[in-house]
């Protein structure tokens, strides 16, 4: 059987890709996608821990479903905010969001 650590490594990689995306991408939609990647990393963690540590109680799975639901709600709100800013400025590039500083 594949050891638990492999799953954890995959999820850590996914998390780091998400982290890189939030830091480095300029497009707000791409940043939103990066956030979703980190949430998927969490889900892999939860399911892997559940399967290997205590498959008897479905806590990990239940939690993963909650995370999925919340991620969907978050994406809906995020896209709405991105649309509202696109209507004003015809752009969703993070560097052009610079009215608020210092």
């Amino acid at each position, binding site marked *: 059987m594949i050891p638990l650590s492999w799953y954890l490594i995959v999820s850590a990689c996914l*998390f780091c890709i*998400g982290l890189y995306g*939030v830091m480095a991408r300029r497009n*707000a939609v791409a*940043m*939103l996608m*990066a*956030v979703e990647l*980190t*949430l998927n*990393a*969490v889900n892999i*963690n*939860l399911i*892997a*821990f559940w399967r290997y*540590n*205590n498959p008897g109680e479905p*806590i*990990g799975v*239940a*939690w993963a479903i*909650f*995370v999925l639901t*919340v991620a969907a*709600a*978050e994406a809906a*709100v*995020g896209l*709405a*905010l*991105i649309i*509202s*800013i696109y209507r*004003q400025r015809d752009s969703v590039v*993070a560097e052009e*969001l610079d*009215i*608020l*500083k210092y």
Partner: protein
Amino acid sequence: MITSYLAILPEILLIILAAIVLVYGRHPKGDRKRGVGLLSSWGVFVVLLVTAGLSFAGVPGEVPQEIWGGMFRNDAFTLVFRTMFVMAALVTCMLTVDVPRLQHGEWYALVMLATVGFNLMAAAGDMIILYLALETASISFYVLSGYATDGRRSPEAGIKYFVYGAFASAVMLYGLSFLYGITGETNISLLTQAVLGNISQPMLLLSTILVVAGFGFKVSAVPFHFWSPDVYEGAPTSTTAILSTASKAAGFAVFLRLFMSGAVGNPSNQNWWVMVVVMSILSMVLGNMAALWQTNIKRLLAYSGIAQAGYLLIGLVTYSVDGTGSILFYLYMYVFTNIAAFGVVILLSRVTGSDEIEDLNGLSRRSPYLAIVMLLALLSLGGIPPAAGFFGKLFIFRAAVEAGFWWLALIGLINAFIALFYYLSVAKHMYLYRSDDEEQPIPVSRAAALALGICTLGILYLGIVPSAVFDWTRLAAQVFF
């Protein structure tokens, strides 16, 4: 069974109220524009009465209850925070009644849903409900920050808060998932027992660092503070008023629930404790230094809020009943003080159309009562008697000295003096400088006057007879020790 429902009655009522307000406030016209705010204020007032009534009827009880399968902990700690959040929502609703661009059912409904989220954060007995409550509050606040879509600043604030906030929640959740992996439990009290056996695991340290980073974001502590000045400035001021107080308090509630119960191990030089000490010092120093240069009153209050988070973290570091009790006391005084300050800014910027510090020039002649409220709020933030902030700081520093952190208390004290400089320079603008509009007083509606009156009374009460509330918050702090 009935007690399980009674225990969450305030939250149930808030959700029903949010639904009613949504229906009533759909495209309001004429008189009904103010009606939305008035209905919300009265409704939240009823919820506050119910919360108080339940505590007198003894529903939390002497023994902490775990209900709904361990999801909800009903104890004195829950009551302290629940009262604080409902009060903050009430005062914010009253201040918003006459803000034209926020006279929609949606705004008030989202504030109520966010309050439900805060209440559940403080009451969470399980990591799943903790995450859900946190997201309920956060998602509501992403919308509330970007609510004024006609302006250019508000959507920008909304999207900044959203991207960083969603990412911070994901980081925190990643940490919590390791905690689940180590122990196989999500219930916080079961988790605490399971953690004691694996205290030296490197995975536990990783998990704690991630969780501290996520919550550091929520309470806007340096180095996770970068979002807060932008969001505070850009968001509608009513949103900022409740975001800067209740949201920060809810972050601390969760911090305390997880850390004081020992779910991530007791403090020692090898673990999360060092990180919290460093965050506390950096927040105080950088928050105050940055606040010195601000010309916008909302940004100034944002940086002052970062510094206040630093003082509060000192209380967390002490890891004692006194330290925890003084955090709760400090949060109470902070809610009243900051909402009073932002309340004055709400009323003022409706006339002037901007929120620069220069707008406050000559306020003492223009509207003497508003100037007094603002002065009291500034004194309280700066920690000068008779305002409540004096005892807030005194209790925290005393707890730190008693726990052996006199050097941390000393850094806090020096910073409190630096902070006085910029708080008093705002007062200087109000009392010494003149402006051309001194003949036009600032219109204050009855609802707003009442709200500012409540805040002023709160500041004075906590500043003159602090012992009653401090005894109460110490009692609440004892649930952890």
